[in-house]
């Protein structure tokens, strides 16, 4: 019991919550960037532009099929060889964005495809161009259906930021490691705290996603 009280001293709790802030900060920036990039890539892949769509699709498939941890390492240790030397937080944001963009690109592409092709044909037959039909008719419906999937992708992004601890990004997992590194009796309290804090953040978001999903159908 004594261990738990001293493990959760004000200083440690504050330090842990600072880590949570960095976790959320990295996740939010990465999800916004990957939403934009992923949407563009997903639309390109859907549009069947000669060669371009094929190449983009292949790159997306490759990124989706390697571990995120590998991308994090590559960003942090590999980029300096090209003359770029990102700090830890930007490196984490870059790695997360690269990985999540490809995930979101796939969500966007299958979201567009699930809006029946009839919608596209109908819009085209009224005289709209491909881009107009996509923008005014297909995308609004597709994005509406995608909201729950994108939220659950955001939840897994938040969980995945914990991997960035390996390049010493000062996020929650890393801060917990610093705390239990001082005293091995703090290991159990810190893991309890990590589990509870991650659970609260992720579960709340999952519930919001489910409510929106139910509301839409």
């Amino acid at each position: 019991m004594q261990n738990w009280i001293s493990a959760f001293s004000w200083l440690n709790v504050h330090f842990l919550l600072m880590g949570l802030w960095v976790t959320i900060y990295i996740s939010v920036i990465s999800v916004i960037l990957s939403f934009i990039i992923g949407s563009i890539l997903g639309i390109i892949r859907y549009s069947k532009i000669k060669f371009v769509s094929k190449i983009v699709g292949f790159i997306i498939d490759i990124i989706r099929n390697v571990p995120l941890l590998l991308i994090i390492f590559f960003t942090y240790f590999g980029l300096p060889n090209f003359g770029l030397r990102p700090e830890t937080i930007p490196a984490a944001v870059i790695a997360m964005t690269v990985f999540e963009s490809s995930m979101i690109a796939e969500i966007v592409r299958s979201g567009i495809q699930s809006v029946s092709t009839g919608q596209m044909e109908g819009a085209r037959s009224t005289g709209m161009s491909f881009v107009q039909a996509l923008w005014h008719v297909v995308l609004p419906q597709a994005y509406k259906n995608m909201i729950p999937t994108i939220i659950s992708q955001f939840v897994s992004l938040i969980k995945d930021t914990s991997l960035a601890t390996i390049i010493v990004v000062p996020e929650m997992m890393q801060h917990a490691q610093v705390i239990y590194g001082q005293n091995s009796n703090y290991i159990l309290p810190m893991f309890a705290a990590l589990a509870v804090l991650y659970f609260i953040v992720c579960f709340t978001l999952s519930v919001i996603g489910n409510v929106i999903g139910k509301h839409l159908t």
Partner: protein
Amino acid sequence: MIDIFTKFSGQLFVGLGWTILSSVIALFFSLIIGTVFAIMEVVPSKIARFIGRAYVEILRNIPLLVITMFFYLVIPKYVMKINGFTAGTIGLTLYTSAFIAETIRSGIQSVSGGQMEGARSTGMTYWQAMRYIILPQAFKIVIPPLGNQFVNLVKNSSVLAFVAGFDLMYQANSIASTTFDQINSYLVVGVLYLIITLPLSYYMQYLEKKLA
């Protein structure tokens, strides 16, 4: 890249072996655990449903790394000594089982309620109907999503690198730190991961199209 591959091929194949071993063990056990919890989520008993739901939601909403490190640090301290590979594989199994439970549950629920009623009306008990009518159909539907879970599992097995699990990722770090050629070390390992995951995920896409 070729240089690194030829020079360290032994080490790389050892890593590949551990990665595949861990993924297959985790897949096997998480299929069993996942099926059990999926069934718990759909049975009439409210308590069982609550336990099933709680298991899935808790494990799905905590990072894999936290679960794995828990088994690597907490269990040896309070319960018994386990090595990194075991701790990592247990973490992977539990984490994946929650996703598999969720997949199988949605499969069971998509097999229409009419099937259960029809089977019951022929005189089968609830469990007979579940075993012979519902589950076989549900498993058929969920093969593609389960395949995708296996792809995720192989990728997620890279957390073994955190706990000295000797897997591909761990070997990549070790090669990168001996050769100082990070780019090529990680590229080689990336290609090795892709050799497992890419054909599998293309095959699952093909199956999905075929079944749809």
